[in-house]
């Protein structure tokens, strides 16, 4: 049995990844009422873009950069223009259902056109382990954690300190007023889709060396993002961050202390309890009910 300290540290690493995926999920919901059921697949796919680049003998850093770029184009802009824009006028639920079809499409495409087998993926960080207060943690985990945190902090600074970032927040809070005040609402929404794509691509590059690249990776990551976003608070970015870390830690502790078989059940039970008891999430604001 590993020490509790180790489990918490490992949980922070997993949690940072979950937070990255959950933040984008929350952003899309806030700015354009998109419940992206393909978010997990969005975090699975960029690793395969990067693998294609690696197969062309490009260096890893360039492959990751290209992967992020292609993701922004396909999972950001194309997703917005080709699926979200035409679907949004039909309502929130038809759009959500369309993203479910998109999830199947992406998963089956990777399985069919790349491989059904798990693929090795090179890591940015060395494999050695270091001693952190008695727990042996791999440098890889620490690196993943630090990069993810840096991305989250950068995003927060962007949203709160820059003019564009504040315009995005305005769009998220009240698009009508934002439009009256001269905020280019459409461009801001497009930007959130690009940011979401960049975040999931980063998460993909960080997590795939550990999980291996497989078409079904999105199932786990997607579920984690949903739970993190809802538990933390669907309408708050900091909710998604808190939810991500909470889920990462709970996930690791549950695997060690509850049972490996029911490890996946714990986050789901938390989800159901939160929805029943505090539907706006731990940090969220209450939304108006439809009925």
């Amino acid at each position, binding site marked *: 049995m590993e020490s509790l300290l180790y489990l918490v540290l490992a949980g922070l690493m997993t949690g940072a990844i979950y937070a990255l995926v959950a933040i984008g999920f929350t952003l899309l919901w806030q700015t354009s009422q998109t419940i992206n059921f393909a978010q997990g697949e969005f975090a699975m796919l960029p690793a395969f873009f990067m693998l294609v680049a690696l197969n062309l003998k490009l260096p890893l850093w360039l492959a990751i950069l290209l992967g992020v770029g292609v993701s922004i184009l396909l999972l950001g802009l194309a997703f917005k223009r080709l699926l979200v824009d035409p679907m949004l006028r*039909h309502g*929130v639920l038809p759009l959500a259902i369309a993203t*479910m079809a998109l999830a199947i499409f992406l998963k089956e495409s990777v399985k*069919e056109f790349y491989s059904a087998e798990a693929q090795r993926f090179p890591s940015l960080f060395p494999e050695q382990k270091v001693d952190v207060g008695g727990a042996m943690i791999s440098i890889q985990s620490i690196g993943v954690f630090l990069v993810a945190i840096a991305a989250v902090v950068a995003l927060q600074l962007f949203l709160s300190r820059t003019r564009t970032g504040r315009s995005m927040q305005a769009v998220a809070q009240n698009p009508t007023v934002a439009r009256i005040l001269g905020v280019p609402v459409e461009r801001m929404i497009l930007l959130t889709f690009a940011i979401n794509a960049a975040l999931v691509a980063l998460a993909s590059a960080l997590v795939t060396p550990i999980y291996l690249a497989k078409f079904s990776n999105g199932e786990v990551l997607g579920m984690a993002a949903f739970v993190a976003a809802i538990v933390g608070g669907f309408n708050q970015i900091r909710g998604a961050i808190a939810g991500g870390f909470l889920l990462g830690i709970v996930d690791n502790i549950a695997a060690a202390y509850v049972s490996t078989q029911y490890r996946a*059940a714990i986050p789901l*039970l938390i*989800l159901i309890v939160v*929805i029943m008891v505090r539907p706006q999430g731990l940090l969220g604001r209450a939304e108006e009910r439809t*009925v």
Partner: protein
Amino acid sequence: MTLQRLAVPGAILAGIIALALAPYGLKNYGISILGLWAVTTIAAIGLNLTLGYAGQVSLAQGAFVGIGAYATAILMAKGVPFGATLLLSGLLCFAIGWLLGYPALRVQHHYLAFVTLAFATLAFLVFRNEQWLTGGIYGISGIRRPVILGWNTAPERAYFHFCLIMLVLVSGFVWWIVRSPWGRAFLALRENPVRAASLGVDTRRYTLMAFAIGAGIGGVAGALYAPLVTYIDPVPFALSFSLNLLLMVIVGGGGYFFGPFVGAMIAVLLPEWLRFAQGLYLVAYAAAVMVLLVFWPSGIMGILDRLLRPADPNQGAAR
């Protein structure tokens, strides 16, 4: 006019007769696929009631089919007659659906999608892990087909006919519900819940009802599924089955009575005819669903509806 009025019942009768005769031209494998279509259609009809008529998104219909299938398999192994297990499977899923519907009352409707998503995943974990009850990954084998009122349904053709009869009965039941005051309340719920509430529709009760009846029908489909395949394991009841059922309803046309029939046909029968395409079929299917949703969100029945009756004065809400 009378001819027109007879057209729809006539077409339905012709369809039933054609389906009843279909097995005589098919080998056993083809008949079992037709049986699978009938059972899947029943599950989709249940979901259509929840999703298409009452507008509540459920991602757990596959899990209800699983619960019904396991309940029937386990009870039949204990010697309970099939008629009773069929009823119990339906009632069990109705009760679970009722309980699961509660969160839907508290929050905005998209949360129900997540609650049911979580439930479907949890149900799968229970099917896989509770070996003492469900046989775990090895599943339950040797499920016998029942003898119903002296009619032995063991042969492939007989069991298909039994599934077909059940499909007709379930369809009739749903046809009746949709036209009853309940069905109208479901539609009111979907179209404008606030107005429905203001007109005195008890939205809480009808939301639960729509969800629970849909789940119960899913349980009945599961009870029919177990003897159809004679062996059940957790794999077919994974979350992807629930997603597929949802897509079937949408593709066929949510809220259209015949939508689930068409949707299940595309999802169950078409892949069999297009076997050569294999994995590509799913890629093409998912892509086609997205295109369909973008251009014709009312599904295939919606397209047919517009083509067949451009100006029907009686075009009410109940379709």
